[in-house]
């Protein structure tokens, strides 16, 4: 018999023991962004007013196009397959204009990102704008950061219930208005709004409102920064667009570190002290809930609110603004080299300052010149080239088009007098919202005459027809050539159409086929 102390203890642990288990999923940490004020905040208010204004009001703008086309300035008429944008009308086959705009948007994003970083994310992305709007509501209902933290941590009282219900109710109203505004781009807005409220709008309209209300409320109100960090691919792509000369929101630790809350004490014991007083104002205002002082990070949307917050603190302390600033990586590296004596020691803020306390002349500053570099010129060039090509194409495009399909079966028909007849499907595209009198003429093909199904006219070299406004007119045209005038088994000739009133015309080269025996 062994005593229990004599039993050897083995070094073993269950692989799934509670203490070795780690959470693989993390709950969202709540973020309570504080209200910021400053020039970037003002700029963001302006951008928000413009973008939201455009989104909500655009469908209500009118644009007179005459009696035969809708008078809505911006309209995606899916049912009739027409897209109206002020003076521009696009038919489905002209969809390349949209492709061109998408190319411009893509290249434009490269251009903007390579110069001023993730400006799209920080200022104009709908997610950012609507989150900003939802935060305005949250602040108005529940108060600023501290009040919200307190409310959130506190027990469920009647007041909390009222505040929460009102906040979510306002959010839902905004979300519904957002979803509601979307559908007005696809139908006549004044008519549709009546239909929506009296219950006679199409099911798809209500479904669209419901889906967009849900996504706006969820993404803008509930998920916020989670959308940017986990769902959106842009941060990854945009990060690849940045280079060492792109402006990004940067914490200038070369003047900020070592940060200290107790500057005087530190100075008294001879420690170097940076400009950062570790007040966390930059963290408190951040809608992404990050600390810019940890350096560039994927979560940062470069909204620049931390710059406003920090500048405010620096002003109060009587120090220079720009502890957090838009800076390029190359400037930052140059300055950190100064502050660390080329990396030989930790940041010493005294190295970046002169004896009189001002900044050393050795420091690098951003210069506008850095925006103009080969990369940005290439982006700008490509962007302008696409834009110019679109513009030229738009200004010179034909509004009267002609397409001809030659009958293949049969290719030709021998008629009783021995003459040969070919059939053609002639498509006249009258792409303006006005009816037009069109003359269809044959060019070439000696002796040939034509008739058209449904047009009661004797055979002739030309005939008149009326093209309805903004419509495609399909004509079945028969061309007949006497046997003795046939020159080859395949002869080229032209259909020509001409607007009787205007100068526009179009031509289409077609082929006339004849059997060997006809010659």
């Amino acid at each position: 018999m062994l005593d229990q102390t004599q039993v050897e203890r083995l070094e073993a642990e269950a692989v799934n023991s509670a203490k070795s288990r780690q959470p693989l999923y993390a709950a969202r940490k709540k973020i309570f962004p504080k209200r910021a004020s400053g020039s970037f905040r003002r700029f963001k208010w302006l951008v928000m007013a413009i973008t939201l204004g455009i989104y909500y009001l655009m469908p209500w703008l009118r644009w007179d196009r005459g009696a035969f086309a809708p008078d809505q300035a911006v309209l995606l008429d899916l049912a009739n397959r027409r897209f109206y944008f002020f003076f521009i009308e696009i038919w489905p086959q002209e969809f390349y204009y949209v492709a061109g705009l998408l190319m411009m948007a893509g290249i434009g994003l490269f251009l903007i990102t390579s110069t001023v970083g993730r400006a799209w994310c920080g200022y104009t992305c709908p997610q950012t704008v609507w989150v900003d709007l939802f935060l305005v509501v949250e602040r108005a209902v529940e108060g600023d950061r501290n009040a919200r933290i307190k409310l959130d941590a506190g027990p469920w009282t009647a007041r909390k219930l009222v505040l929460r219900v009102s906040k979510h109710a306002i959010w839902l109203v905004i979300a519904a208005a957002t979803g509601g505004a979307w559908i007005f781009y696809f139908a006549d807005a004044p008519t549709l709004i009546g239909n929506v409220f009296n219950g006679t709008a199409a099911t798809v309209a209500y479904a669209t409102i419901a889906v967009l209300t849900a996504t706006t409320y969820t993404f803008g109100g509930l998920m916020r920064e989670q959308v940017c960090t986990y769902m959106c691919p842009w941060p990854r792509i945009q990060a690849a667009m940045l280079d060492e000369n792109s402006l990004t929101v940067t914490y200038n630790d070369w003047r900020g570190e070592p940060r200290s809350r107790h500057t005087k004490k530190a100075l008294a014991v001879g420690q170097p002290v940076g400009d950062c007083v570790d007040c966390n104002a930059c963290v408190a205002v951040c809608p992404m809930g990050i600390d810019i002082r940890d350096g560039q990070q994927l979560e940062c949307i470069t909204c620049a609110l931390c710059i406003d917050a920090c500048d405010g603190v620096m002003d109060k302390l009587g120090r220079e603004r720009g502890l957090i600033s838009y800076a390029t990586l190359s400037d930052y590296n140059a300055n950190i080299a100064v502050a660390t004596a080329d990396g030989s020691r930790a940041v010493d803020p005294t190295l970046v300052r002169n004896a009189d306390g001002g900044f050393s002349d050795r420091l690098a500053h951003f210069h506008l010149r850095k925006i103009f570099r080969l990369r940005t010129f290439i982006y700008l060039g490509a962007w302008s080239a696409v834009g110019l090509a679109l513009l030229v194409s738009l200004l010179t495009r034909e509004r009267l088009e002609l397409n001809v399909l030659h009958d293949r079966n049969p290719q030709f028909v021998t008629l009783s007098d021995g003459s040969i007849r070919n059939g053609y499907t002639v498509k006249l595209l009258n792409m303006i919202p006005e009816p037009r009198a069109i003359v269809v003429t044959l060019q070439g093909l000696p002796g040939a005459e034509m008739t058209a199904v449904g047009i009661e006219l004797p055979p002739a070299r030309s005939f008149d027809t009326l093209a309805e406004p903004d419509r495609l007119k399909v004509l079945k045209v028969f061309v007949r050539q006497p046997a003795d005038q046939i020159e080859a088994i395949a002869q080229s000739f032209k259909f020509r159409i001409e607007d009787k009133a205007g100068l526009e015309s179009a031509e289409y080269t077609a082929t006339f086929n004849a059997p060997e025996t006809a010659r």
Partner: protein
Amino acid sequence: MSSEHIDDVSGVPTTGHEWDGIKELNNPLPRWWVITFYITIVWAIGYTIAYPAWPMLSSATKGVLGYSSRNDVKNELAAAEVAKGQYIAAIQAKTVSEIAADDALREFAVAAGGATFKVNCVQCHGSGAQGSAGFPNLNDDDWLWGGKTEQLEQTITHGIRFASDPETRQSEMPAFGDIITADQINQVSAYVASLSGPVQDKSLIEPGAKVFAENCVACHGDKAKGNREFGAPDLTDAIWLYGAGEAAIAAQVRAPKHGVMPAWIGRLGETKVKELAVYVHSLGGGE
């Protein structure tokens, strides 16, 4: 295995899993992500209950919503029928020439007639209605029985030489091989060929004209222009149902072939026959 494993480079805890020196970092996914994942699983299961999904021995579960793609097709076809209804009604009520004169109705009838043609007529007349030897080309302007819409309708309705329809188009050219001599056949063939083109032996033309006057004018007319009352073809034009040239003409004189076209009214009904008539009329030869 415990949580004190921290990656040196990133400062992120590792899961303790390591493969050839590569450690798995534990950057926790957001919790809503995994919740969303579970929701999709629940959704998928719900979907298989709501819609036909699970394979059984002979078929699959029907789904509690009772959805079936066959029903979908049936409904869509029914909706299409309803949409066509007003056109069908108008076609029933109007005569073929009225239909041909109305742009919208004509367009509908040409499309519908074209579809009917592809199923019922292409076997003889060809997919482009271009015909072949013995089967008339419907694109040209030469009509044995008339090329007006009403006449086309009549032909399609009752057929040609279709024994079981009392109103069918009826005509029969005698076999002249038993009536006139072989020489006379050659002469009359040369004469007929000369009406629309050159012939080899011009000396045959004059006796041929005499043979023609004695035997053929009753049906083909003294100018050989034919007669649609009897379906007798115009012999002066460039179109030959059984082939051009003296030899082909002689063969037809000696022992004529007589094509038969069925009466289509029984199979297609009045509406489709009307649509077909308008379609054929639109091919370019309609009168």
